[in-house]
Structures are given as C-alpha cells and as structure tokens.
C-alpha cells in the first residue's frame, strides 16, 4: 500500500455475511456514499461460517484491523448463524485479550441490508481508530522468525 502523505494507511479486511452486511455494503455503493479505501471485503454465506482462525491469519498476513459483521440477531437468513457467531466471538475475544492480542483492532458489529449508511460510518470509524492505534507491528514482526530475539 502506498504510504502517501506519511500518514499511516491501515490495511483492514472485513469478514461479512452475504445476506445482510454484504448487501448493506452494496446499498452504500448504490447510494454513492464515500468511505475510506482501506477496507477490503471477504464474502461469507453467514457469520456462522467465519472461522476464528481466519482473524489470526489476517493479522499474520499483515492486517492492522479487522471488521466482522453480519445480520442482526433474529434476522439471520439461516435463523441462527449469527447467534452461534456471537457466542464464538465472545469466547474468542476473551481468550485473545487474556493472551494480550489487541482486541481493539477487531470491530464486531451487525449491519443489515438496509443499513448502507451505517456500513460507511463503521468503515470510516474503524479506519480512524486503527490509524490512531498505528500498524500492528507487534504481531507482524514475529510472524516469520523462529526465535523471539533472533529475527532471521
């Protein structure tokens, strides 16, 4: 990513469910709402399909922030995918926080197919938050070496 005016450009990936948030992002598009280019969307059939390991892989591959979003409770196209996801996120987030991984960089939310504006706001808000937190070097720096000190 080109670091234009020296300002840190965070790289953020968004895991979204196809029926609600992906459609919400589509709506933001059709309504021509403008938001930052830092966020790239990965489409999942449902938030229930989002594997928690993918969040760690995203950090390892160099993401500075992650957005995870799906249908509001009771709206799920598959009736209960988001309920399962919510439980998974609660437990996973607690474990990450306990191990010192920066959970402020993961923004969990619900965005329905009608909330295009909310999607745009969340993107801009997350980009600003992550820009304030700076790059997640703590995680990326040790991603490839075998010893903590000796970085080969």
């Amino acid at each position: 990513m080109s670091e234009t005016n020296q300002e840190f450009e965070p790289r953020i990936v968004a895991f979204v469910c196809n029926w609600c948030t992906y459609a919400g992002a589509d709506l933001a598009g059709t309504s021509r709402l403008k938001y930052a280019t830092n966020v790239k969307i990965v489409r999942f059939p449902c938030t229930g399909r989002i594997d928690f390991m993918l969040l760690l892989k995203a950090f390892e591959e160099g993401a500075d922030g992650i957005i995870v979003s799906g249908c509001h409770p009771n709206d799920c196209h598959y009736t209960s995918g988001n309920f399962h996801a919510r439980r998974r996120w609660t437990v996973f987030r607690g474990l990450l926080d306990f191990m010192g991984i920066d959970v402020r960089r993961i923004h969990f939310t619900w965005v329905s197919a009608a909330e295009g504006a909310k999607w745009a706001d969340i993107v801009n808000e997350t980009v600003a938050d992550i820009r304030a937190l700076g790059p997640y070097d703590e995680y990326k720096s040790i991603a490839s070496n075998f010893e903590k000190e000796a970085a080969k």
Partner: protein
Amino acid sequence: MEQWLGSLIKSGKRVVAPVKHDDIVDFAVISSPAQVADDYVQTRLSAKQYVFPKAEVLFSYKKDGKDVTIDDVNTDEFPETVLWKLHPCDVAGLEPLGAIFNWDYKDSLYNARRAKTTLVTFACAASDEYCFCASVGGGPGNTDGSDVQVTMLPDGDALVELISDKGKALLTDDIKGETSSADGIDKEKFIAKVEKKFTVDEIIKKLEGSFSSPIWQEQSDRCLGCGACAYVCPTCACFDIQEDSHLHGGRRVRSWDSCGFSLFTLHTGGYNPRTTQSARWRQRVLHKFSYMPERLHVTGCTGCGRCSRACPVDMNLVEHLTEIASHE
C-alpha cells in the same frame, strides 16, 4: 574461569551456556559469565538445537507473477559458537547425530553449524537415578568428542584438558599465563559416580529377534505418543519438511519430528504401518540400540536420561533397558 569465559564472550563468538529461568535450566546465549547456572544435574533440552535447530529454513523463494527466484541459506552467516559447560553425554550425542546427517547425503547446513561450534565440556559434578552414561560407553569424565574438558576442583581451581586443536586455539594467551601443570591431579576424585547397569552389547544381543516380543506392549501401554522424548534427546535426528507459503513467495522449513507421533508413518494413501504405540516404542528403542549400531556402528543413546525426565508418564529408559537386559 570467569575471566576466560569473559574473554570468550568479548571475542565476538556466540557463547552458549546453561542458564536457569524459573525452575528449569536450559542452554541459552549468554552475555555475561554470571548468567551461567550451577548446582543442577542436567539441562532440560540438549545442546542439539545449536547444530540441528528445532526449526530452520532450508531455502526461500520469491514469486513475481509467473517467474520464481530461489535463494539458498548463506552458511557463512552462521555464527562461530562456543558451547560452554556441556556434559560429556551432550557431546557424545553429536557423534550419532553427525553419523546420520552424513550417512549418504552430507547435510551442508548441519555440517556448517557443526564446524563452527567449539565444545567445552564440564565433567559431571552430580548425577541422578536417570543418568546411565556409564552403561552406554560413556562416563561423567569421558572426553571423547570434547574440544576442551574442564573439571572443577573444590578450591575454585579447575583442571583443564585441551583435547583438540580447536580446543587449544580457544585458550587465548592472556589466560595461558594463569595456568600451571596439572599432573598429579586424580580427576576421578572430583567427578560424579554413575553405576553401570548393563552393557550396550548385552542390549544389542537381547534385541535380536525381539521384533514381535510382548515386552514392547508391556512397556509402552502408558506411552501417550507425544514428542517430548525425541525433542529433548541429544541424538534424535528425525525431521519433517513443511512449507511456509505466501503468495509473494515462501520458505521451505525443516523442523524436528518424532517417531512417537501416530501420524509419523502415515502414508499419503492412508496406510499406516505403525498403528499402535507399542510399535512406535519398539521403533525408538531398536533404532537407537539395534539399527544404528548395526548400520552406523554408533549407539544412538548417550545415557543422559533427558527423555525419562521429560516424559509425562514416566517412561524411564534406564528401567526399561535394564528390563530388556534381564528379559527371557
């Protein structure tokens, strides 16, 4: 001794010595002599990792669209290393290790590291019920393989035997002045005693034709199949090759493996010749006490006892070997 160690550190070489953190003593790079641990019997891991690391890059490659560039590991970058305060059983491990890494394919990475390593052993001041180096041709004062062997004397002095020319080169001039002749010092008095329980030949003899003996099942019922014994063992040389691949390129990585794992012998087609833990335990013992002596004329075990100490279910090797020696 501190002065000598201090000068070695200042010489820019990488000096590795046993260091105590929490309740475990393990080898680590030291920056000052004070870090060196004492009053312990054995380090948890062997020094194997400095010649055969638990994970190392074999080569890395970059992909730019369709073309790929491969670059090898530059072995010159391997640091000159002094392994300080080893025990004779650690050094004894390097011989079978080297034998395997030079059996048919001469492993350049291993040999490069081995060449740049100088081995300073300390004769064992203490031993415990797990040690059985004496039974496998070693001993607390054995000097085979060491470049220098130091025996600590009670009044703070130390008996230093310079064995190889690499060892002689280690003794810098300013330290030479401090030395005096060592004749007349009986080394045996100052080192630990290790009782001899059996001889390697007895074991080799007993193991012939023992492939389908029930003893393997009796001994290994409780074995959980983890890799602790293999990874702490100074002579285990098995490794696995894995891929650290990313779109823009990647690295081929070699890392330790263990015949204790259930999937160690899983064929791609799904067949697994060793499905029971007793078969894997048999493989571990036969490899060290039958196959290696026969093929490489070295014993695959130095009697350091690390595997017994690390085992979660107390698979005590010396107990098992004595059992084998007195079997039938």
